[in-house]
């Protein structure tokens, strides 16, 4: 899956791109297991065709969108984003996709649609850990409308010039580069437009640890570890590589800072 070089500001990170092997074998995708190596081992069972994404809620054009139609809905772009996990590690991934805003404009949200909710597939037949007590399934995530409409928010179908590997959220996922990785829902089957802030999977599991916004913020620590620094996966130094400083909004402050003007980010973490 090829994409043209994106011209969206911030979409061409200059950092060294993470090795494909690391990006596809070190994953959090709890439907397939809680160990980082589990998704690569277990996600082979996921069936990505046929696939439909249901758009519902406060929109003028709700409906079921087939994956083939979504792929053609807008021109595919390649975007190199930093990915910062809430656990304190990071990668740099060349995604392929287009701004989620393209889809949102097509389905015409109503004026009272303030949030967008994303639901991941929860199929116990192909996803061995769906049903375990780790999370409340299906995996739910959400964004405020202005966050969802931001040009950096990506609807992604591929990475490294290929279609998404199953363990990375095939066939379609969200990528929000200035938020911790878990905000970017994988294997999306439903996009719902709602008026009230939707409940999100990790917030429901541990509200004191994971907020709705979950913007990358070196000044707000996780209750169990510091967020001031991060370990860049596969940066060559191996075990002895020094941790690097985490940047506000993962380095996308120039592009997204204004979305949070006046908000107390210590409270709304």
């Amino acid at each position, binding site marked *: 899956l090829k994409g043209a070089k994106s011209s969206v500001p911030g979409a061409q990170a200059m950092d060294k791109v993470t090795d494909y*092997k*690391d990006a596809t*074998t*070190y994953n959090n995708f709890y439907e397939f297991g*809680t160990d*980082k*190596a589990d998704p690569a081992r277990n996600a082979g069972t996921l069936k990505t065709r046929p696939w439909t994404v249901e758009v519902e809620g406060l929109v003028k054009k709700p409906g079921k969108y087939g994956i083939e139609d979504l792929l053609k809905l807008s021109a595919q772009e390649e975007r190199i984003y930093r990915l910062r996990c809430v656990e304190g*590690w990071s990668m740099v991934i060349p995604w392929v996709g287009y701004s989620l805003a393209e889809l949102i404009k097509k389905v015409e949200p109503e004026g009272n649609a303030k949030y967008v909710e994303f639901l991941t597939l929860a199929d116990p037949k192909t996803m061995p850990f769906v049903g375990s*007590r*780790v*999370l409340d399934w299906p995996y739910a995530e959400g964004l405020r409308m202005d966050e969802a409409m931001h040009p950096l928010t990506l609807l992604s179908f591929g990475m490294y010039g290929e279609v998404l590997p199953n363990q990375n959220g095939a066939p379609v996922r969200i990528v929000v580069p200035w938020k911790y990785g878990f905000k970017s829902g994988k294997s999306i089957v439903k996009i719902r437009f709602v008026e009230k802030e939707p409940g999100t999977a990790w917030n429901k*599991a*541990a509200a004191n*640890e*994971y907020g709705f916004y979950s913007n990358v913020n070196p000044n707000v*620590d*996780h*209750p*169990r*570890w*510091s967020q001031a620094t991060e*370990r860049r*996966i*596969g940066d060559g130094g*191996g*075990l*002895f590589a*020094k*941790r690097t400083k985490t940047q506000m909004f993962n380095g996308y402050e120039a592009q997204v800072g204004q979305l949070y003007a006046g908000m107390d980010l210590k409270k709304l973490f």
Partner: protein
Amino acid sequence: MNKLLLNPAIKPAVFLLCLLPFAWLVYGAFTDGLGANPAEYLIRATGDWTLRFICIVLAVTPLRVMTGLNALARYRRMLGLFTYFYVVVHLLSYSWFDMGFELGEIAKDIAKRNFILVGFAAFVLLTPLAATSFNRAIKAMGVRRWQRLHKLIYAIAGLGLLHFFWMRAGKNNFNEVFVYAGIIGLLLAWRVWNHWRKKNAPTRSAAARVQPSK
């Protein structure tokens, strides 16, 4: 079996066996064999091995009493010291690979985060046990006081479990924690039961002492 355990070649063999996980981790660290995040792998693996050695060392006495393999007692000190060895490597890995040996930052981290504080407390409490594990210390302290000090291992096991539980709490991922808690719980419950049994059957155990088993 008792004879085999008393064989002078067995102790070095057990020593090497205990060192195997460490050797394997070092080998992995230098051959890019610890996955995408080697630092995290090393920190977690040494924590796992500390807990495993706590289970192993706590299993020595119940096994000895149940099987009558008294020679097992000869291995208890070495297994206890390996527990300390793995917790030291665990702490060093965290201090080095996570914190870059910045002592101020480490102190702040320990004070601020309950799960690290609890783990660190377990390490601190284990230190006097490791430091008094040679014969002269036992003599100098007197057996009873030494034994009382070494009962701290029960509290240390609890703190180690709590450390692991809190570490996993954010992800509600407790399966492994429950396995370790189950094993340690069983080994401690056996001690309570054994103590109660001895107290309630003093004549029988006294009789047993008169006729040592061969």
